[in-house]
């Protein structure tokens, strides 16, 4: 049996409620200061230089 709800959803709907403004009411202001990358530089130094050379994937969509 094939159940369709197309007809019953034609009744008038109440207005769509106002959207939530995300978490805390909208996006933050841009933070354009340059990052303190000292920890990140350490993290980058730990990256295996050959990781990309070894990394092989099948084609996807």
């Amino acid at each position: 049996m094939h159940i369709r709800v197309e007809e019953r959803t034609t009744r008038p709907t109440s207005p769509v409620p106002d959207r939530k403004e995300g978490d805390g009411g909208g996006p933050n202001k841009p933070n354009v200061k340059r990052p303190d990358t000292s920890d990140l530089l350490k993290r980058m130094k730990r990256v295996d230089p050959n990781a990309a050379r070894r990394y092989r994937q099948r084609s996807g969509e």
Partner: protein
Amino acid sequence: MSVGERLQGAPTDSPKRMQRLFGIETEYGIAVEGKGAGDLIQESIQLVRSYSGSFVTGWNYRGEDARRDMRGFTVERLSTNPDDAQFDAPGRPPMSMSEERSDRVLANGARFYNDHGHPEYSTPECSQLRDLVAHDRAGERIVLECARRRSAAIGVPISIYKNNTDFHGASYGTHEGYLMSREVPCDILIAGMLPFLVTRQIYAGAGKVGVEVDRLDTPVYQLSQRADFFSVEASVDTLHNRPIVNTRDEPHATPRLYRRLHVIVGDANMSEWATAVKVGTTSLAIGLLESGWTPPVRLKNPVGAIKEISRDQTLRWLVTREEGGTISALEIQRLYLAEAQRRFQGATPDADWTLSEWEMVLDALERDILLAADRVDWIAKRQLLEQFMGAEGLDWTDPVMQSLDLAYHDLDPELGLYQGLEQEGVMRRLVTDRRIEGAMTCPPQDTRAFLRGLFVSRHGSAVRSIGWNGVAFTHEGEDLLFDMNPLVEPNVQLLNEEMSATSSLAEVVQVIKKPAAQE
């Protein structure tokens, strides 16, 4: 008159109607220590099967045919990448499609499965940008959790990358789906989207070290992960000979009323802002075409232009117009922005937010790209990698630079470079971690994904198969199909509310069968 019929004319009758369903499908890169590309189908299957939350198996392919072209024909077969044949071991016993895909339909309304050797997470349908961002990021955490569970089971490290290339010529996709009016003719859709899709990489690109497919004499840092891999303007293919505009005709909704624009040209974004603005601007661009506008610009060579922009080290991003002369990617984006401001300002909070952010980022790109380093992936990555190059005395040709590029997309919080930027607090966030955690198990409340999630979480044992547009289930010995094709408009919330009040499958069936109230 059905709800679909009433809304059919809405895009032209009511230009400010800008709410639509959208979603993102991400194929993740996977690296398992000691395994090669030939093992990745099995590894991806096992990773997906490591999912431990509530789910049902059995994808419902009703209405799906990837070979069907919206231009009115069906191709005999889709192109595949001949290079992948090297990874197929001869004599390996074939698997059934359901075994290979290992579909999991989750309680949050998402689909999680193996696609061509990649764990793929398709978000549930969302209608609000922040919901989509939360569900996209929930997908990251779900895939990472599965990788950790699988890694613990086999005692081997597994890395997961949210990117689109292996730097050896293999690309995998991050696709977007946008429900739109069928009234927009195909040729208008293709011509209208080409200049937009070719140029949106200036703020939506995820950045890439090096060039694939072609050989260049000079080292480059590209805007886009994917631009190298597009060879035609429009076609139904996705795996090979990829088009800038994908013409696959799978609306996942009432076909006579809707199209689903399947955008395959985008990058996987780590930045929440980039995900939201990429989808928000594309939704507005589609809205412009729905409202009857066509852009006053055509590119002489869109396939060449998408690569030229991505590889342009001067950041001038000039491309040739069909009628002669050049125009910059920024100018093209401003054409769409100006018209969208005129037509959609005040339409919805998401439209207003997108218009504002769109204008601000174009201004920033014009003045100083570093002004957008806190939100645009290709700039954040470039800034980080240039600092490393400066500290180590390297250039873009050093092999470590592609490894650092890969590391930017590593989902591991301890290893990933984007993760590090986020932990430093320098990347803009649009959703809280708590909201992301919620999205791992809860569907959006205002789309039909809520109904899919309800079936999974409450009535999973009755479900025979489940898909984007329907649920096949058994009740009291009778096989039933709940048709969700029409449930793509905002008033589905009424049905969601009724369904959430049910306490048994019998009550669910009762709600579905209830006749419509008279208008």
